[in-house]
């Protein structure tokens, strides 16, 4: 008779009877189970696979597997002209196409070193902020679903629908806009557009309030997210987190403020960070709250932009677009604040071709998700769902 220790699975007393091991007695040891969460799972927000090692409901290790939605964005970019990359950027983060385009456009403009008409900048900011609200609405709504509240999701989609309608009216498409071009815009906005946007802002404020009453202030919701998946600020920075994730950890860092581009320096808005009163800094609730607050700030930005908007007289949205985009040889890393964080583009040009030599998208979701392994350790399965939801991944951007 002997005792075997089976690597943390509790000890087993066995005996040998002519070469076969007979288990006499087993401790009340739990066995670890491999649980494949995804690629088809309701709460992985797309085709993400998490291979979890679970001990009961407790996750001892979770390893993300990506690439199910890999569409060779970077290879495609090397084979098309600079302006033709724009529709592909829409498809990175398909919930915030305008922001992705914006990021790409300012990157190439930095390389080209061209001046953009002011009205173009204002329109860009308005559509980007509208899209940010739309994207945060999806984030908040799907987070509700992850935690079991279905109704807020549909309220979010009801309001997002209006934003998509507005953007469709401006750009011609609902999600994949190809509206912000390198050096300008595809079209000027329709005549009544700004008036309607302003009406939307007044319409949306009470709805946002209702949403927060229904979901964010709900005690069950708070209990489900408070203190779950805490990420300290320094670790978050080391992981390269950005956007609402980083702000949720209490770092006041917003590229619109700290690395200003476009007309953001002229605008008055706050960078919301949790103060630790409503939530534990760095937990899921903080990240959720930051998103909710950011919607308010975006509304403010939109209002200011409409007030300050230069007149449309003699305005040609394509006036600054070069006839042929062929940047000088060089490299550039440009970035903008996306709803999910820093979307950067590294572009290398050889100075001869009209196609980029290398175009890399630094996706915020990809980087944010890389902390999954650390965050999920020792959490329960429902908490894992809450954490994935709070990271707010868009697999289109993770896998590119």
């Amino acid at each position, binding site marked *: 008779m002997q005792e075997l220790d089976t690597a943390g699975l509790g000890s087993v007393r066995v005996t040998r009877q002519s070469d076969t091991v007979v288990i006499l007695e087993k401790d009340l040891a739990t066995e670890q189970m491999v649980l494949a969460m995804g690629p088809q799972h309701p709460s992985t927000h797309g085709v993400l696979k998490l291979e979890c090692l679970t001990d009961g409901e407790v996750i001892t290790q979770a390893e993300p597997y990506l690439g199910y939605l890999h569409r060779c964005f970077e290879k495609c970019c090397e084979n098309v002209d600079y302006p*033709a990359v724009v529709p592909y950027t829409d498809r990175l983060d398909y919930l915030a196409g305008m922001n992705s385009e914006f990021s790409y456009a300012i990157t190439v403009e930095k390389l080209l070193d061209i001046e953009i008409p002011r009205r173009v900048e204002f329109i860009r900011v308005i559509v980007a902020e509208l899209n940010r609200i739309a994207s945060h609405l999806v984030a908040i709504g799907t987070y509700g679903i992850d935690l079991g509240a279905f109704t807020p999701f549909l309220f979010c989609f*009801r309001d997002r629908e209006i934003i998509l*309608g507005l953007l469709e009216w401006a750009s*011609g498409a609902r999600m994949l806009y190809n509206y912000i071009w390198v050096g300008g815009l595809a079209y000027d906005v329709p005549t009544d557009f700004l008036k309607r946007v302003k009406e939307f802002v007044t319409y949306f404020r009470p709805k946002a309030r209702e949403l927060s*009453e229904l*979901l964010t202030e*709900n005690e069950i919701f708070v209990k489900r997210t408070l203190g779950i998946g805490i990420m300290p600020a320094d670790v978050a920075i080391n992981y390269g987190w950005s956007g609402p994730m980083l702000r949720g950890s209490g770092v006041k860092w917003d590229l619109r403020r700290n690395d200003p581009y476009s007309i953001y320096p002229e605008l008055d808005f706050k960078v919301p960070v949790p103060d630790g009163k409503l939530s534990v800094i760095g937990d899921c609730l903080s990240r959720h709250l930051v998103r909710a607050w950011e919607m308010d700030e975006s509304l403010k930005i939109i209002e200011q932009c409409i007030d300050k908007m230069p007149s449309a007289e003699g305005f040609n949205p394509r006036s600054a677009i070069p006839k042929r985009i062929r940047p000088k040889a060089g490299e550039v890393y440009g970035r903008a604040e996306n709803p999910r964080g820093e979307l950067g583009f590294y572009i290398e040009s050889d100075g001869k071709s009209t196609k980029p030599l290398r175009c890399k998208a630094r996706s915020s979701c990809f980087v944010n998700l890389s902390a999954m392994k650390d965050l999920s350790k020792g959490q329960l399965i429902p908490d894992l769902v809450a954490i994935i939801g709070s990271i707010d991944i868009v697999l289109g951007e993770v896998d590119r």
Partner: protein
Amino acid sequence: MSEYFGNIKTGAVTIATGMGITLKHFFNAIHRKGDAGLDDVDYFRQVDGLCTLQYPREVIPTPTNARYRLYNKIDDCIGCGQCVRACPISCIEMETIKVAPDDLAVCGKTSDGQQKKFWVPLFDIDVAKCMTCGICTTVCPTECLYHTPVADFSEFDRSNMLYHFGNLTRLEAEAKRRKLAEIQAKALAEKEKKAAEAKQETKDGE
């Protein structure tokens, strides 16, 4: 202990608030929002209420500048091929035949009076591939290629997604091709003759 009762109290209060909101919406369900498009002045003056529509019968109008199904007004197409080159995913396939000089009048002019110099026997758009980016429409010099606001054009058979816009039948195209070949052959012969003559002349000159 006070935390314990506080928790129960906040729980009860917030749950009641949430239930109030959903109940309000429940009773609001006697209203329906309507199907105004966003370009409608009264869009935000519609009542709050059920906001979904019964799709095939009720549709939110797409704005006039919406960018969905790609359409080519072939009568205006001059066959320049810029769209084919611009398309990032090569969903346009095009074949052109140069118009013979005596056919120019038959081939006609575009609506803005430009002489067409190419027959376009083949102009196929694979709308299944098309990602409606609109790049082809911006390079089109005659603006004959454009996106229409028709958003729902699904098909049961994928081959029906291949839209043919070419305006010549195969026989016609063959005839035009042959004619062009003849003319070209003639021109070539002419050229050779001329070259030969020139050669002769230079020889003679020597």
